[in-house]
C-alpha cells in the first residue's frame, strides 16, 4: 500500500513539475520570439538559440530529477527555470555580447545543480569538512588581493581569471556565500545548545556568547574595507544574523547586529566615496540626476515608463541605465513588462522563498534546517536588496538579481544552492512519508 502511495506522489510530482515547466517554457519562448520580432522585425536564430538551449537543459533536468529524485519539491525547478530563462531573454535584449558566456555558465550551473541534487552523501561531506571548505573559500578570496581583476576594466578587483580559459572570470565572494552558509549551518548545528546556555555563565559566558557575532561582524568589516564589496558584506551579515536568531532564539542578537550593521554603514559612508554616493543618490537623487545619481534616476524613469503593462519586450529604453544587464536588470523588467512583470518577479522570488523556508520547517535535522534557511535567506535577501535599491527603497548595494542578472559566478553558485535545496527536498519528502 505504501509503495503505491509513493508512486502516486512521484507521478504527481512529475506532472506538476512538467506542467509548470511547460508554462515557464511558453513564457520564455514567446518572449524570445517577441524580442526577435521587435528588434529585427523577423524571427532570427540569434534570439532563439539561447532559449532553445535553456529549454533543452530544463527538459533534461526535469527528466533526470524525475528519474533520480522523484520526491523532490516540484515547484523549485520551474521557478528557477522561469528566472534563468527570463534572464537569458533579458541578457539578449540588454547585452547580447554576453549571451553566449551566460549560456555557458547556465550549462555549467545546471550540471552542478544536478550533481548536487542527485549524488548521495553530499551533506555529510559538506558538514564533515566545513573548515576545509571555508578555508578554501577564504584563500580564494585572499587570492584576489594578488591576482584579482575587474573584467570591465575599472572598479573593485573582485574576480579571478579562470586558468586555461581566456576571458572567463570567477568571483570568489560568490562561492564564499555558499561556503559560509554551509559553515554556519554546521556550526550552529553543533553549538546552538551551547550558545543558549553560555550567556548564563557570567562575563566569560557572555563573551563566548557574543564571540560569533563580533567575529562575523569583524569579517564583514574586513571584506568591506578590503574589497569595497558592500553588497556581499551586507548579505553575509544578514544571513549570519538570521541563522544566529534561528539557533539561539534571542532577539537581542538581531538588535545588536542591526546596530552594528548601521554602525558599519555610517563608517562606510564617511570612509568610502562609493558608499557616500549611493546613500546620497538614494536620499535625494533629483538634484544630481545627470551626474552622480544618473543610474538610480534612469532606473526610476524605467519604472515609470513601464507603467502597469510595460512597453513590450525590446520596445523600451532600459539601455539608458548603466550596467542594466547586471545590477539593474529588475528595472529593465519593470520597463518592458511593466508592473505586471515586476510584481511577477517579486512573486516568483516570494514563492521560491516560501518553498525554501518550507524545507527548513519540515527538516528533521538541524543542519538541514539551517542550510535550507540560510540558502533561502541569502537568495531572498539578495533579491530584496537589489530590488529595493532599484526602487529607491534602500541605498544600492551592488548585488545582482539572483538567477536573472548577467554574472557567471552568481549563476554557478545560485545553481549549486538550488541543487542543495532540491537534494534536501527529496530527503524531506521521504522523511515526511
Amino acid at each position: 500500500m505504501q509503495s503505491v502511495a509513493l508512486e502516486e506522489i512521484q507521478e504527481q510530482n512529475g506532472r506538476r513539475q512538467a506542467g509548470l515547466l511547460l508554462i515557464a517554457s511558453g513564457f520564455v519562448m514567446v518572449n524570445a520570439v517577441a524580442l526577435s520580432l521587435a528588434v529585427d522585425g523577423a524571427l532570427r536564430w540569434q534570439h532563439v538559440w539561447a532559449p532553445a538551449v535553456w529549454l533543452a537543459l530544463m527538459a533534461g533536468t526535469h527528466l533526470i530529477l524525475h528519474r533520480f529524485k522523484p520526491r523532490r519539491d516540484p515547484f523549485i525547478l520551474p521557478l528557477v527555470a522561469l528566472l534563468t530563462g527570463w534572464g537569458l531573454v533579458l541578457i539578449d535584449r540588454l547585452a547580447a555580447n554576453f549571451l553566449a558566456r551566460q549560456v555557458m555558465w547556465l550549462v555549467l550551473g545546471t550540471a552542478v545543480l544536478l550533481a548536487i541534487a542527485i549524488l548521495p552523501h553530499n551533506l555529510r561531506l559538506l558538514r564533515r569538512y566545513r573548515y576545509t571548505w571555508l578555508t578554501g573559500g577564504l584563500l580564494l578570496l585572499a587570492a584576489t588581493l594578488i591576482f584579482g581583476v575587474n573584467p570591465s576594466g575599472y572598479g573593485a578587483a573582485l574576480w579571478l581569471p579562470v586558468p586555461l580559459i581566456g576571458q572567463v572570470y570567477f568571483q570568489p565572494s560568490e562561492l564564499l556565500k555558499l561556503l559560509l552558509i554551509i559553515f554556519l549551518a554546521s556550526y550552529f548545528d553543533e553549538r546552538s545548545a551551547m550558545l543558549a546556555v553560555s550567556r548564563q555563565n557570567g562575563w566569560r559566558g557572555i563573551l563566548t556568547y557574543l564571540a560569533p557575532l563580533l567575529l562575523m561582524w569583524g569579517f564583514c568589516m574586513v571584506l568591506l574595507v578590503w574589497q569595497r564589496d558592500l553588497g556581499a558584506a551586507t548579505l553575509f551579515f544578514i544571513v549570519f544574523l538570521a541563522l544566529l536568531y534561528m539557533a539561539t532564539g534571542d532577539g537581542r542578537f538581531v538588535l545588536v547586529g542591526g546596530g552594528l550593521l548601521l554602525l558599519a554603514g555610517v563608517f562606510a559612508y564617511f570612509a568610502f566615496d562609493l558608499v557616500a554616493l549611493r546613500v546620497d543618490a538614494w536620499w535625494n537623487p533629483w538634484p544630481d540626476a545627470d551626474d552622480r545619481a544618473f543610474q538610480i534616476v534612469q532606473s526610476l524613469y524605467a519604472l515609470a515608463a513601464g507603467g502597469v503593462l510595460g512597453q513590450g519586450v525590446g520596445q523600451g529604453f532600459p539601455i539608458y541605465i548603466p550596467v542594466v544587464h547586471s545590477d539593474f536588470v529588475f528595472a529593465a523588467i519593470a520597463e518592458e513588462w511593466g508592473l505586471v512583470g515586476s510584481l511577477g518577479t517579486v512573486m516568483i522570488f516570494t514563492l521560491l522563498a516560501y518553498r525554501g523556508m518550507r524545507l527548513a520547517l519540515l527538516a528533521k535535522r538541524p543542519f538541514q534546517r539551517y542550510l535550507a534557511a540560510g540558502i533561502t535567506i541569502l537568495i531572498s535577501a539578495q533579491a530584496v536588496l537589489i530590488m529595493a535599491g532599484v526602487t529607491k527603497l534602500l541605498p544600492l548595494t551592488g548585488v545582482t538579481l539572483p538567477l536573472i542578472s548577467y554574472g557567471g559566478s552568481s549563476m554557478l553558485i545560485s545553481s549549486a544552492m538550488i541543487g542543495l535545496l532540491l537534494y534536501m527536498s527529496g530527503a524531506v519528502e521521504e522523511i515526511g512519508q
Partner: protein
Amino acid sequence: MKPEQPTGKTSQLLRVILVAFLAVALSLVFWTVFRGPAILARDDNPRRVEQELRIQRGRIFDLQRNVLAENAETAGIFTRIYPLPAASPVVGYYSLRYGTAGIEESYDAYLRGEPDNRWQAEMRQLLHRTQTGRDLQLTLDANLQAQADALLGARNGALLLLQLEDGQPDGSPAKILALASHPGYDPNFLDETFEELAADASAPLLNRVTQGQYQPGPVLQPFILAALLDQGIIALDEPVAHANRPVIVNGVATYCATPPPLEATWADVLAHRCPGPLQDLADRLPAANLAAAFDAFGLTEQPQLPLNTETAVSAPISKTTLALIGQDTLIVTPLQVGVAWAALATDGRLPTLQLVEGLQSETGDWVTSTPPPREPATAVTPVAAQTLRGALPRSGDIQTFSTLVLSGPDGSNNSWYLGLLPAGDQTYAVVVVLENNRNLAEVAQIGEGILTAVNGR
C-alpha cells in the same frame, strides 16, 4: 533553560522575508502608478525624446494627393521630410527641438495618432502597438503654391488665393488654394537654421498672410463704399467734386492711383482709387457705423483657420477722417482682407475658410472635412455687393483693385492687389501685398499671374 522551538523562529524569518517582498511590491506600485506620470514629464527624461522619434506621423497631402510632408525611417527612427518647402507657411514644421508650427501644430495630436480616449491608450499599450498617425489632405494646390512662391520671388510679402463657390445659399466654404509668405524658410533644415531665422529682422518665421499686420489704407475703399451703397448713403453715379484732391498723412500727400475724369462719380473714385472724397463721408457715416462696417466685413475678427491667426486687437476709431482712408487705428492681415474681398465676391456673404479637405479614418478611409459652421453673417446685401463689383476696374475677365498704402511714418509704401476671376460656377479671389514696394504693375503681375495659373490648371 529550554530553547524555543526552531520552527517558530523559521516561521518568523519567513514572515520577515514576506514583509520585505511586500515592501518592494508597494514601492513598485508607488513609482509606476502614483509617481510615474510626474517623473516621466521631467525634462531630463531621455525616454520622451526616444518615444517621440519613434512616432510615425501622418502624411500631409495637397488637393491632388501630392505629398507635402512625409517621413523617412532609419532603424525605427522617423525624420520628417517636406518635399515642397514653399508650402511651409501652411504645412509649418515639426521639430523635436523647436516644436511645431502651421498644420503640423494645429493637427499635431491627429498627425501623431494620439488615442481618442483612455481605452484606446490602454489597448495600444497592452498590444504594444507603435504610435502611427493618420494622414491629412489640405485644400492647398501644390502647383499653385509653388507658383505663388515663385511669383513672389525675392520680394517680401504675402499672397492668398481662395476658391469660392457661386450661388450656393448654404454657404460653401472658401477653399485656400495657395498661401505664400515671404521671406520664408525651408522646414527640412529648420534645426540647423532656426536660431538664425528667429534672429532675422525680416521675420521669415512669421506667416505674413495670417499674422502680418498691415495698415490697410485705400484697401478698405471697396468695403466702405459697399457699406455706403448698402445703407443708401451714396450712389455710384453720384457726382464727386475734386476727386483727385490730395490727402496729407504724416506730411505725405497722396492722390488717386490714376487720374480720374474732371466730372467724377463714386464709381470713378473706386476705379481710380482716390482717397480724398472718402474723407468727405465723415459727416455722413459716423464712427460707430464705420466700425460696424469693418466688423461686418470681418476686418476686426480673428479668422477661423487651423493656423495661427492671432493678432493684436485694433483700438477703437480715433479719427473718422483717417479711418475712412485706412490710416487710423485699424490694422489688418491679408487673410482678413481676403475674407472681406471674398464677401464681395459671394454677394455679401462672409465665407467660412477651409484649409483641410479630408481626414483619414481609423480604417484608412478618407472622410471629407468640413470646417465648423460659423454664424450666418452678411457684410452687405447682394445688390450692394454686385453693384460694387460691377464698378471695379477690369483687366480682361479679372476684376481688380490695386493700390499703394502708406505703411509707416517714414513714408514707406506697401502695394496691394485684390483680384476676382469668375470661372464657371466658381470665383477665384486673390490678395497680394508687397512690402516696401511702390510698383503697382509688379503687384498686379503677381496677382494676375496666379489667377491665370489657377484658371489654366
